[in-house]
């Protein structure tokens, strides 16, 4: 006969099972539904190049095996937890030694691991091949943006002068690209899920990665190694262009500097730029009143020693570590959702005055750390010997912001 307390305990358990089961059901369904997301630009299950395709193929081998093994193990764990939990019963008879079972349970996982290891090792080795690459692009991470530069080379269809940009890496479609990456401050990680796996970018080391895109388009990614306060705002994109469009993009990036017309707001903005921004940001070809080149020295101002090159700022369509769009939502959709055959033309248009997302850009210029946390406590700057991490608040006036935007709009 059951005691009153046992009945009461069982009743309490029955009450607990109800909500727990419902929560588990909702959580499980939520996880399942999350897999059906349509607007997922960083979807590893939607590869857009041969390297990501290799990873995807491997996933389809490893995940089902791991899933089945996991399901079996969790089922047994659940059965054991429920069936053998302590109810105050006597300790059951203890047995030791089942050689056949123990050997079997050692050999079976070993065989499964060998089965997984063979395609995994093969894929890793194939992904690490760089001999067949036809274009070099250097990427350098720093808190909290990516610099992308193209050395003088015969690859990429020939690059006679170095090209420096940031946030967006432009590559030719169907060309295996060698990414050589490093970092200027802490460890970052470069990951464009639809094009390849992750690669850590470590100060003092050069790590390589292959990238290749099958179709023109923009492929999003973000830093995947926690790197400080604005790690979540350290994004990047790879822009794939048809070879002809890529040539046009190179020509854009190598075009000589065009000074704003005298007497315009942009011309006033050039002076504001030299006074406020040129200590850190380089604009190639810009000269001071004496005709000497204006040389940025971010290494004397910023902890990482670098700041984005703004020579052709409006040819890319994101800023501040690719965290905000330079295009309005409508114009952005025109580019991002363009059919492959029209994508290159729309991307190369760059940012026009009509399409400029001035709201975010103004907020950024007004007080950058308020929009993207740069450092939690100004006193922490002591450890960087007075050098700032990220862009400081320059306390610009609204007029100065107008002038700078007018000047920057011509940087393409």
């Amino acid at each position, binding site marked *: 006969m059951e005691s009153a*307390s*046992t009945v009461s*305990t069982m009743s309490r*358990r029955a009450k*607990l099972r109800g909500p*727990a089961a419902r929560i588990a059901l909702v959580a499980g369904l939520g996880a399942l539904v999350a897999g059906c997301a349509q607007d997922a630009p960083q979807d590893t299950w939607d590869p857009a190049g041969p390297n990501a395709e290799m990873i995807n193929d491997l996933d389809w081998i490893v995940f089902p095996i791991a899933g089945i093994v996991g399901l079996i193990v969790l089922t047994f764990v659940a059965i054991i*937890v429920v069936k053998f*939990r*302590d109810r*105050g019963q006597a300790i059951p008879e203890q047995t030791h030694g089942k050689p056949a079972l123990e050997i079997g349970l050692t050999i079976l996982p070993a065989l499964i691991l060998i089965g997984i290891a063979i395609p995994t090792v093969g894929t890793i080795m194939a992904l690490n091949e*760089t001999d067949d*690459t*036809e*274009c*070099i692009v*250097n990427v*350098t991470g720093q808190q909290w943006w990516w*610099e992308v*530069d193209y*050395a*003088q*080379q*015969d*690859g990429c269809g020939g690059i006679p*002068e*170095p*090209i*420096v940009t940031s946030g967006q890496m432009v590559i030719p479609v169907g060309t295996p690209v*060698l990414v*050589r990456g*490093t970092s*200027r401050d802490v460890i970052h990680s470069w990951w464009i899920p639809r094009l390849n796996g992750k690669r850590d970018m470590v*100060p*003092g*080391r*050069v790590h*390589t990665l292959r990238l290749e895109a099958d179709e023109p388009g923009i492929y999003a990614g973000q830093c995947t190694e926690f790197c400080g306060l604005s790690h979540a705002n350290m994004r990047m994109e790879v822009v794939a262009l048809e070879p002809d469009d890529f040539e046009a993009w190179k020509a854009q990036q190598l075009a000589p500097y065009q000074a704003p017309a005298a007497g315009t707001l942009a011309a006033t903005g050039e002076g504001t730029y030299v006074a406020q921004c040129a200590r850190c940001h*380089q604009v*190639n070809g810009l000269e001071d009143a004496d005709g000497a*080149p204006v*040389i940025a*020295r*971010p*290494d*004397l101002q910023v902890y*990482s*020693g*670098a700041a984005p*090159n703004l020579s052709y700022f409006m040819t890319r369509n994101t800023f501040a570590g690719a965290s905000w769009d330079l295009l309005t939502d409508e114009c952005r959709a025109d580019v991002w959702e363009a059919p492959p055959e029209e994508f290159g033309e729309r991307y190369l248009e760059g940012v026009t005055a009509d399409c400029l997302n001035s709201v975010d850009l103004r907020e950024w210029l007004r007080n950058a750390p308020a929009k993207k946390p740069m450092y939690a406590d100004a006193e922490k700057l002591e450890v960087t010997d007075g050098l700032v991490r990220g862009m400081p608040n320059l306390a610009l006036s609204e007029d100065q912001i107008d002038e700078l935007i007018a000047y920057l709009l011509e940087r393409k």
Partner: protein
Amino acid sequence: MFTTGSKFLIGATVLATVSAIAYGVAQDGVMGTVGLASAAVALAFLAGVNIYVRDSNVWDDEISAVETAPAAARPPADSIWPMAFALGAVVVTVGLVTYQAVFIVGIILMLAAGAEWTAEAWAERASADATFNAEVRSRIANPLEFPLAAAIGIGIIVYAFSRIMLWLSKTNTVVFFSVMGAVILGVAFLLAYRPGIKSRAAFGTIAVGALALVAGGAAAGLDGEREIKVHETTEGVSEEGGDICASTEEFEADEKASQSVGATAAVAATITLTDAGELVFDVNGPVEEGTDSLTLPRSNPNNVLFVNESDEDRRLSLDLGTRVVEEDGADEEVPFLVCTALVEPDGEQNKTITIGAPSFAFPDGYSFFVPGVESARLELVVP
């Protein structure tokens, strides 16, 4: 009702929830509130699991267990660990207002005393048999205590030994090391071949020796290290105005140049002086051999590996334009050169170069060259 563990977890959940609300309202801090709310959710989950499994092993309805459980038994003896823990807390407090080292010692003392206290308290409740309980404690604590004690002991001896070696002159360290080695070997030989020696005498000898070493180390440490001459570097000579980077002569900085570590696994470029007297470079990727200018990213610490295939000792130098130095209170513009040490034929050396200004900042740009070999010049482009 609820078991002890469940009460603890429920209490912690309530505390985290209240803290999250209080922090959110008072500090208006999103990150802290999210952290505390996450902790509350995690604790609530654990509390739920604990309620369900009822602390795993205690049947809370058995009221008699309160009197018969091992936990109810009287401890066999007083413990020093609560006192040691309290001492640790005091040292931590003193450390907070004095030196960081004192604070760290206090933390270590608290952790050690806490661990010992926990192990002892747990073992005392293992059964009603004090002997068995002592055995249980030894089984749990000794595997941690013995290696830790050995590590601490070895650490003290090694540190004391190093202080003595750094205090003695360069020559005397050799003598001291030889004598110490001979003494240790002799004592070990004696102990091994004279088993008749009483263990108390052997232990006493070793203890006296260890004590002398520690005392000597403490005295040497207080007196300080001997003056150690820092080996000259090419950067040092260059910054002091020496023309090492333009010279084929051997400087002190060039001695034992092979000690310089070559970061060959992460080189940005390999620059080779060929036996024909030319500088050629190789980078990973599609850059054809013979290209006459090398591009390196700006502000990056670029590892450049210099390989000397000529028949003579050569250094790789880099002309970085000019720099401004303060001379007698006035700014003066001087040539800015960096270089490797002299590298022997078929030798190689790594040089890490970080360049802040672009090459177009100077009319002549940047270039690598090899002093004494006119034809060896390579343009460096830094965007």
